[in-house]
């Protein structure tokens, strides 16, 4: 193996370079010159190269490497295969955009904070790369938990605020519990050899233990991915972090959980069963709906985006679940299609969610605002950001011809393979899950109309906010580095949306490497213009033609209208409906926009409303939506632990005689036992 031409070695080198950048951040010279000027652009370059190595490895055979580190009997094993390559591509390319953005975003930090952020940021990136490259349980766990730890410290960057501290705590706690489940899963899979993935792959499991391993992996990784009911940390932690970090976490880190799920379930456990798929589908559907419905209720922009991450994880799970159902029933073609759809959505979500979080970061930087209810009219002060954010918003709303649509379309196509299934109930279940997806897609569109309409359009809603003086008067658009970062990701949305076929071929390689079979030959032989999931007469989609036609039609219309009619325009005040005292506060707020949803889905929410009375001089409506999971899952568990510890506490009442009695009784009991 030529080390230099090997993508595995090169990826390792890239990951180590991130570690080196992290370490260099501690060099205090020149007001943290390195961290301020060089670290992030360099990190972005490394990300790009990592993406290219990953891309390369998708088309190659799997490679392995062993490092002389780690446990005595279990040195660090590394491996790169199409699946790992795909996720490296995701990590590298998305993080490149985020890193460029971060280079601009963090520039104004104080030296000490900046050094810490740069250290943890690049450590975070490197640990994610190692998670993907790991080929044994130990290295995987080390990288996995390092990832949790470094992101925890990033989340608590602004630790002066108590809310952020508790968010960080919750985050790390859930992450740790998830990690414990994953560890247990590796233990269950273990079949006598060591803990390298090769040995785990080779282990023969009975159906019972395979199912146990599946459930452990699913919930362990699901805790990280933010699926319900283990999602509670996500909407707390992601908004708490600085925006580029939120982008990294939502965009990439959640995907490492998907990676882990696919790796463990498809690759290590193998022999996927359809019952597992039903579990995944059920949780996925719940997660999807829950995520989007709660997102609609949010008025904190970053929190809203975080809930959308929950939703999109649900969509990915729907794809995975369908794939598992088909594979379990012995339909590898449809199974591969589901997997491809899920992985495609993984990549898409990484790109547009990162873009949206970066946009939210720019808003926060420029105006200091996170609450949508205070925003409005930002399109005038930050037109570039508005454009990029619009692309992200359309993409996440699954509107053609952007990328979100492609993966949802593929998921729908997978669901439409349902007639293949012999099992009547399952066959009719799949379209129902597709219906959830449809509902979620439409709700997402509603939510992003709300976000975009309220943040960027209209007029500033609240003047009481001091930051608004800035936003109205001297508000500024994002800096150039930030814009480059967002432009890169926006371009990603377009490319992924317009050229899906090349990505489909790539993902097909991943599917082949995992399930042994890929998409149908007809699908693979279709030209680059046409996206064909199974056969051209069944379904096809060509985003380019689509876009060209829309553009052509729109241009023709403009041309015609301009050509035939005059272009005279008068600018006036908006119509006041005969009520001259219109104020900006009379616009819809984010809370108001969610009102139909609250009405339709009322029982789902735990609402605390404050309705202003007729006498109030300064009436304000406010609403607080709480997550029911807190009350039926998290708090009871916490109370149970508390109760147990209060009972255990009774053991130790301070009286020495009692302590002596314990020793005495222990002795006597053991003596009796010995006899």
């Amino acid at each position, binding site marked *: 193996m030529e080390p230099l031409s090997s993508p595995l070695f090169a990826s390792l080198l890239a990951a180590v370079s991130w570690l080196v950048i992290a370490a260099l951040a501690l060099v205090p010279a020149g007001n943290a010159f390195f961290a301020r000027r060089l670290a992030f652009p360099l990190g972005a370059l490394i990300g790009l190269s990592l993406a290219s190595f990953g891309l390369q490895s998708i088309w190659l055979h799997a490679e392995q490497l062993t490092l002389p580190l780690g446990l005595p009997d279990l040195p660090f094993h590394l491996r790169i295969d199409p699946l790992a390559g795909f996720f490296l591509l995701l990590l590298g390319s998305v993080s490149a955009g985020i890193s460029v953005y971060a280079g601009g975003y963090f520039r104004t930090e104080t030296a000490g904070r900046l050094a810490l952020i740069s250290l943890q940021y690049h450590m975070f990136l490197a640990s994610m790369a190692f998670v993907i490259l790991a080929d044994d349980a130990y290295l995987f766990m080390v990288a996995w938990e390092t990832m949790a730890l470094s992101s925890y410290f990033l989340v608590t960057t602004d630790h002066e605020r108590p809310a952020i501290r508790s968010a960080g705590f919750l985050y790390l706690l859930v992450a740790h519990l998830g990690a414990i489940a994953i560890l247990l899963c590796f233990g269950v899979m273990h079949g006598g050899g060591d803990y390298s993935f090769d040995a785990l792959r080779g282990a023969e499991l009975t159906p019972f233990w395979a199912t146990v391993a599946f459930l452990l992996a699913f919930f362990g990784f699901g805790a990280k991915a933010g699926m319900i009911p283990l999602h509670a940390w996500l909407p707390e932690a992601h908004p708490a972090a600085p925006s580029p970090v939120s982008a990294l976490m939502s965009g990439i880190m959640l995907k490492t959980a998907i990676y882990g799920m696919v790796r463990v379930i498809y690759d290590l456990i193998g022999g996927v069963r359809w019952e597992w798929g039903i579990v995944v589908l059920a949780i996925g559907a719940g997660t999807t709906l829950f995520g989007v419905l709660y997102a609609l209720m949010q008025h904190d922009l970053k929190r809203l985006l975080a809930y959308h991450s929950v939703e999109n994880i649900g969509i990915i799970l729907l794809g995975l679940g369908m794939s598992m159902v088909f594979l379990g029933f012995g339909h590898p073609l449809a199974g591969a299609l589901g997997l491809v759809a899920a992985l495609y959505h993984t990549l898409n979500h990484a790109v547009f969610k990162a873009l949206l979080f970066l946009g939210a970061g720019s808003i926060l930087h420029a105006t200091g605002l996170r609450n949508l209810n205070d925003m409005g009219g930002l399109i005038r002060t930050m037109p570039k950001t508005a454009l990029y954010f619009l692309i992200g918003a359309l993409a996440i709303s699954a509107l053609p011809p952007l990328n979100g649509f492609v993966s949802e379309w593929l998921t729908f196509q997978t669901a439409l393979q349902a007639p293949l299934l012999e099992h009547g109930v399952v066959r009719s279940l799949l379209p129902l899950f597709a219906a959830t997806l449809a509902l979620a897609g439409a709700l997402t569109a509603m939510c992003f109309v709300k976000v975009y309409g309220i943040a960027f359009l209209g007029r500033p809603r609240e003047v009481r906010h001091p930051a608004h003086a800035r936003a109205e008067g001297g508000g500024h658009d994002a800096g150039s580095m930030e814009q480059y970062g967002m432009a890169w990701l926006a371009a990603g949305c377009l490319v992924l949306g317009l050229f899906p076929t090349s990505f489909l071929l790539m993902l097909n390689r991943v599917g082949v490497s995992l399930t042994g079979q890929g998409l149908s030959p007809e699908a693979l032989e279709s030209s680059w213009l046409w996206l064909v999931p199974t056969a051209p007469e069944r379904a096809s989609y060509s985003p380019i033609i689509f876009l060209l036609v829309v553009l052509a039609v729109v241009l023709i219309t403009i041309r015609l209208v301009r050509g035939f009619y005059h272009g005279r325009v008068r600018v006036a005040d908006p119509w006041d409906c005969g009520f001259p005292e219109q104020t900006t506060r009379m616009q819809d707020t984010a809370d108001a926009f969610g009102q139909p949803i609250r009405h339709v889905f009322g029982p789902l929410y735990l609402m605390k409303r404050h309705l202003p009375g007729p006498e109030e001089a300064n009436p304000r409506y406010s609403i607080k939506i709480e997550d029911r999971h807190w009350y039926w899952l998290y708090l009871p568990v916490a109370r149970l632990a508390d109760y147990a510890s209060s009972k255990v*506490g*009774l*053991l*130790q*009442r*301070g*009286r*020495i*005689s009692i302590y*002596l*009695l314990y*020793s*005495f009784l222990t*002795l*006597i009991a053991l*003596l009796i036992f010995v*006899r």
Partner: protein
Amino acid sequence: MALPLSGQIVNLLAALLLLLAFAMLAQRRVLTLIKLFAWQGAALAVSTAIVAYATGQTHLYFSAGLTVALKVVLIPWLLHRLIDQLQVRWDIETLLNIPTTMLAGIGLAIFAFSLATPISQMASTITRSTLGIALASVLLSFLMMIVRRKAVPQVIGFLSMENGLFFAATSATYGMPLVVELGVALDVLVGTFIFGIFFFHIREQFDSLDIRHMEKLKED
């Protein structure tokens, strides 16, 4: 097989030891407790000396001498002095009433005997049957420590446990090697000194040697 005379005497002394242990368990007055403790030490020393004489293990004489010096003379004297200085001559309060304690003690003794019987069968020493008694007196001292509420009786309980251990050593094996015996004795001595220091500190802090004052550190 009839026991030789020395064996019979040792057995007698062992019974005395056990009786003294019970007496200490039942005793309410500190001064008497110290006296009983001294007597226990004396019985231990005599039995050790007899074993030494009967078996020709010369180091046991040394051990007996050490016991006399420490447990019959030095430690009771130290305790007396402490009690004089600290003026703690009150009656002893117990957590459990005396009859119950005695009943528990009898149960313990039976348990100890049944536990020791199979082992003492293997012993080759003339004193082997006393192993059960030694174990019983260790457990009885333990029980005494549990039920006493004041610091001084607790310490006496501890020391009497040490006596039981010594007795076990002589009865089962004709005593531990000398270096160990010396080490143990040193530990006991230092321990007693430290106890003494503690009595003063405790008294200084709490105005009493009642360990009920020392129940502040706990989980709530």
